[in-house]
C-alpha cells in the first residue's frame, strides 16, 4: 500500500510493473533533458536583443523537426515493447472473475469448483488494531504466487475499475462487457488497491485486497472455503 503523502510508485510485485517503472524512469530522464534545454533557451531569449533581420532559418527548422522526431521514437519504442508484452498470450493457471457492484466486489473462482464470495470493506469502527483504514476487506482475493492469473472484470450496475497498483493492473468494469487482464505476483504478500472509476457515494469505500500465497496454501484455502 502507499504511505501517507507518497507521490511515487509502490514497489513492483509483478514483472509488468517492474517494466513500467523502468519505462517511467526512462521517460522522466528524457523529460529532464528537454526541460534543461527549454530552460536554457528561455534564459537566452530573455537576455537577447530583439532584431528583425531574420528572413528564414533553414538550419534551425531542420533541427526542431528532427530532434522532436527522435525524442518521440526514443519514447515510443520501449512503450510499444511493454504494450505488446502486456498483451502476450500467456496460458493462465487460474481464471478469476471480478464483478463490481455498488459498493463491493464479487469474486468467482469457477475453474475447479464454484467458489463465489463478496468482498466488502471493513468499516473503520470494526477495524482491528494495526489494520489499514479504508483498505481492509472481509474476504480477500487469494491467488497462488508465481502463477499467471487471468482476471475477467465486469460490473453489475455502473462503471467501476479493478485496480491494484503494485501489480500494475487497472481494468475498467463495464456493465454488459467482459474485460480481461492478467498478472503474475512475484512474491507472497498482501496487495491493496481501490476502485478507480467514480461509481457513487461509496466509490472510495470498495477496496480490493489480493493475497498472494504459495500454491499449497492456496489449495488449502480453496478446499476449506465452502462453494
Amino acid at each position, binding site marked *: 500500500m502507499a504511505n501517507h503523502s507518497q507521490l*511515487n510508485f509502490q514497489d513492483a510485485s509483478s514483472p509488468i510493473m517492474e517494466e513500467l517503472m*523502468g519505462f517511467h*524512469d*526512462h521517460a*522522466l530522464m*528524457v*523529460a529532464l533533458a528537454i526541460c*534543461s534545454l527549454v530552460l536554457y533557451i528561455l534564459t537566452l531569449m530573455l537576455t537577447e536583443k530583439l532584431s528583425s533581420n531574420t528572413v528564414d532559418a533553414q538550419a534551425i527548422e531542420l533541427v526542431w523537426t528532427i530532434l522532436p522526431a527522435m525524442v518521440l521514437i526514443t519514447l515510443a519504442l520501449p512503450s510499444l515493447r511493454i504494450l505488446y508484452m502486456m498483451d502476450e498470450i500467456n496460458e493462465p493457471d487460474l481464471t478469476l472473475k471480478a464483478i463490481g457492484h455498488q459498493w463491493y466486489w464479487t469474486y468467482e473462482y469457477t475453474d475447479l469448483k464454484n467458489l463465489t464470495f463478496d468482498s466488502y470493506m471493513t468499516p473503520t469502527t470494526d477495524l482491528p488494531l494495526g489494520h489499514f483504514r479504508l483498505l481492509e476487506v472481509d474476504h480477500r482475493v487469494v491467488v497462488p504466487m508465481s502463477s499467471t492469473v487471468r482476471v475477467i472484470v465486469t460490473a453489475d450496475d455502473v462503471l467501476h475499475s479493478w485496480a491494484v497498483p503494485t501489480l500494475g493492473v487497472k481494468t475498467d468494469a463495464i456493465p454488459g462487457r467482459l474485460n480481461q487482464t492478467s498478472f503474475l505476483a512475484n512474491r507472497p504478500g498482501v496487495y491493496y488497491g481501490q476502485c478507480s472509476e467514480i461509481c457513487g457515494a461509496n466509490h472510495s469505500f470498495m477496496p480490493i485486497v489480493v493475497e498472494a500465497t504459495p500454491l499449497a496454501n492456496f489449495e488449502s484455502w480453496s478446499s476449506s472455503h465452502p462453494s
Partner: protein
Amino acid sequence: QSFKLLGFLDVKNVPCARESVLYGSLASLVMGLGHFLATSRVRRSCDVAVGGYICTMLGYWFYCRYNLAQQRIRQRMIKEGMKNRILFEGTYLDPEKKQTGSERSDS
C-alpha cells in the same frame, strides 16, 4: 529519502540517474570551459556546455540502462537455473549426473 531534480527526477532511488546527471555535469563543465579557453566566445561556449550536458547525460543513461537490463536478464536466468537445479537434482534431467555418467563410461 529522495532528492528530486527539477522536482520530478528522483536521482537517489532511480538506477543510473545519479551517475548520468553527474557525468553530464562534468562533461558540460569540461566542454564549456575547454571551448571558452580555445575560442574566448562566451555565448557559443555556453551553448556547447548545455549541448554537452544533454548529450553526455542521455548517452550515459542509455548505456547504463542497457547494461542494467542485461544484468537483470542474467539474474533471472541464474535464478531459474538455481530453481531447476534443486528440482532436477538426482533425476535424469540433472546435467551433473549426466556428466559423471559419461566420465565413468570413458574410464
